């Protein structure tokens, strides 16, 4: 018996060692695509760039960006996409060979505020000067409170809650805020489906879902839309929606608004198809990613509409170049989060040029300079043309609705 125990211990030890060896070997390959020459050839049109023109001479050095997002756990698809997108932008900018060079370090927060703050401290230890994150709102609120205290410039690619930016002058968003998504969706539905009966299914233990639903319902009321059914679910009950779907069907809803993430949405789509209930499904940016989901039959998503600022099959050269590169490195079609991450790096690039920062400045000095520059610049990105920022940190750009046809997004 004793011997057996010792043998087990040894075996486990050997396993552990071999694992460590394996890690150190494969460590370099985690998510760094080689700074390819493809990037240089594409010549990466760096936004308008005109704002920064007058001060380009002074800005320079290698800036260290710290990325925070869920790289593991149930929301990993968002964090990974955003950080991969950011990495592509970093490689493009570095390949330009200009005075401004970037280095990106991504840390995992599993979409948890506690781990987000831990990741943030770790990044500062490692010398990060500017934070690109957090990818999710919950973690973003906690992290931005810390960055505000420490005066570190923060640009969140996709932390859409208002609480992420409210009261913090150093935090800016690339994505729409939740209220904007809610009102935007309500406006779009009121305009394009006049007289429709709308049902909402949302997750009431999730800040993102609840936030969008609240503003959607408020805007729907002012627009005089009829909301015939509202169903809720929680993290623990997101595997069965037969009750909510039956409720929506019995109420005669012909538009089903789903301000939720794509995993529960995929279950809803499958169950609705099984009970042959076919309303128009309308999602927001959380729905983005459903086509890349493993084991999901994309034919179920046929006809689903969603409000997203990015569509991978947009015709313009820049989007095409990004999609091609992303597909090459990571083997999938980028979603909106990847584009948000990509834009975030270019926005920082533009702002640094406009502010004339150098990398030997302290994080706090960079922060003050960038905060001033942010409200003055205008950036053309993948997720919007001529993005500008208010001093509150909110972005203004045009929302866009897409519909899924034959497994890709198309503009209706």
């Amino acid at each position, binding site marked *: 018996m004793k011997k057996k125990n010792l043998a087990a211990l040894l075996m486990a030890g050997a396993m552990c060692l071999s694992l460590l060896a394996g890690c150190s070997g494969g*460590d370099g390959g985690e998510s760094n695509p080689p700074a390819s020459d493809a990037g240089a050839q594409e010549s990466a049109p760096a936004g308008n760039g005109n704002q920064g023109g007058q001060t380009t001479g002074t800005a320079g050095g290698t800036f260290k960006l710290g990325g925070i997002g869920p790289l593991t756990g149930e929301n990993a698809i968002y964090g990974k996409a955003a950080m991969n997108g950011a990495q592509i932008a970093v490689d493009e900018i570095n390949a330009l060979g200009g005075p401004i060079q970037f280095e990106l370090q991504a840390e995992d927060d599993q979409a948890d505020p506690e781990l987000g703050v831990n990741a943030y401290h770790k990044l500062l230890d490692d010398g990060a000067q500017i934070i690109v994150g957090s990818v999710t709102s919950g973690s973003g609120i906690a992290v931005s409170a810390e960055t505000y205290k420490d005066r570190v410039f923060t640009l969140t690619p996709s932390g859409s809650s208002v609480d992420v930016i409210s009261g913090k002058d150093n935090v800016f968003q690339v994505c729409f805020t939740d209220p904007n998504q809610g009102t935007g969706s309500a406006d779009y539905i009121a305009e394009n489906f006049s007289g429709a009966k709308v049902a909402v299914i949302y997750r009431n233990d999730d800040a993102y879902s609840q936030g969008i639903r609240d503003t959607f319902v408020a805007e729907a009321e002012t627009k005089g839309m009829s909301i015939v059914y509202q169903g809720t679910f929680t993290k623990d009950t997101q595997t069965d929606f037969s009750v909510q779907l039956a409720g929506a069907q019995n109420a005669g809803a012909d538009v089903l608004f789903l301000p939720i993430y794509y995993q529960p949405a995929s279950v809803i789509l499958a169950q609705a198809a099984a009970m042959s209930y076919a309303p128009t499904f309308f999602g927001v940016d959380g729905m983005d990613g459903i086509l890349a989901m493993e084991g999901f039959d994309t034919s179920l998503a046929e006809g689903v509409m969603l409000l997203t600022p990015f569509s991978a099959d947009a015709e313009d050269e820049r989007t095409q170049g990004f999609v091609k590169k992303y597909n090459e490195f990571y083997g999938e079609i980028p979603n909106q989060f990847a584009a948000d991450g990509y834009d975030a790096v270019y926005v920082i690039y533009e702002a640094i040029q406009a502010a004339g920062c150098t990398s030997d400045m302290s994080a706090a000095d960079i922060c003050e300079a960038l905060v001033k520059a942010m409200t003055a610049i205008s950036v053309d990105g993948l997720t919007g043309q001529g993005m500008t920022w208010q001093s509150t940190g909110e972005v203004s750009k045009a929302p866009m609705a897409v519909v899924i046809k034959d497994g890709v997004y198309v503009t209706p």
Partner: protein
Amino acid sequence: MKKLIQKIKGLKKTTKVDFATYLGVILAFVIVNLLRTGGLLNRSLTGMLVPICAYIVMAVSLNLTVGILGELSLGHAGFMSVGAFSGVIAAQGLQASIPSAPARLVIAILVGAVFAAAAGFIVGVPVLRLRGDYLAIVTLAFGEIIKDLINCLLVGYDSRGLHMAFNISGSLTINDLGLEPGGMAIIKGAQGATGTTAISTFTAGFVLIMITLVVVLNLVRSRAGRAIMALRDNRIAAESVGVNVTKYKLMAFVTSASLAGAAGALYGLNYSNLAASKFSFDTSILVLVYVVLGGLGNMWGSIIAAAVLYILPEALREFADYRMLVYAVVLILVMLATNNDQLKALAGRILPKRKGAADNG
């Protein structure tokens, strides 16, 4: 000096272990503070100090239920949640009347402890009368119920005082509270407590650990503590000599719950955002892992296990995607190592004194 040494030698072994535990915690606090003022502690560790303190208190308090009382509680995070949210409401609501942050923190921790104790009492009274694993089942359910209740809770504060609404229909929002323009939302249902002013400090965490240790260790070594342990070891025998089962079980359970509530308040006031979903079954199990790895009934073991196992996944960040895998392997290794007879014998030979301490740990 000689007298003192004589006195220490004359103490009971358990008392020695207790004093060593206090001394260890104080030493750790002093060393960490010295390192911090010397600038030798990096930001990651500095940032982790408060959550570590909160988890240590959680582990010690759960150890009281699991190790000393011998009942399995799977919803300890539920009490933490009650403490955290009531503490946040207290701290945020008193912002105007008590400007001093440390004073507010103390009040918040007390409020958290009282509310969690009340919750523990409500859960404990019916359940602790039962035999078998019912406490585990009910605490499991309790954790989930608390999560759902807080998801329905809307709390705001303005010059007229505290406003609360219970969003059972799922259709209310924070705007339905009718706050005055200058009012502040404290808990926004599923979005949790956002915009909380973070006032927790490491010193407060240290004081809380010390209080927890004094309460728990004194309870365990007291007459009541012996009654509790007698119940754990043989309920029928204890009952036959006149030990009041419900009273002593409830005493341990409510103490444990209120300490968890205090830890929750400390934790909740360390982050500007706190959602009920954080205090899920996973968190309860995490704390249970600290307790089991530290040793059932072994308080200093819980302290070390909580601190080490909290830092471990953060220290493993270098491994990127593999870090949770490595973490799991380390857990298995620790479990195998601490239960290995040969290693124990080896440790016994190297540290002959330890054998006695380990027996009554």
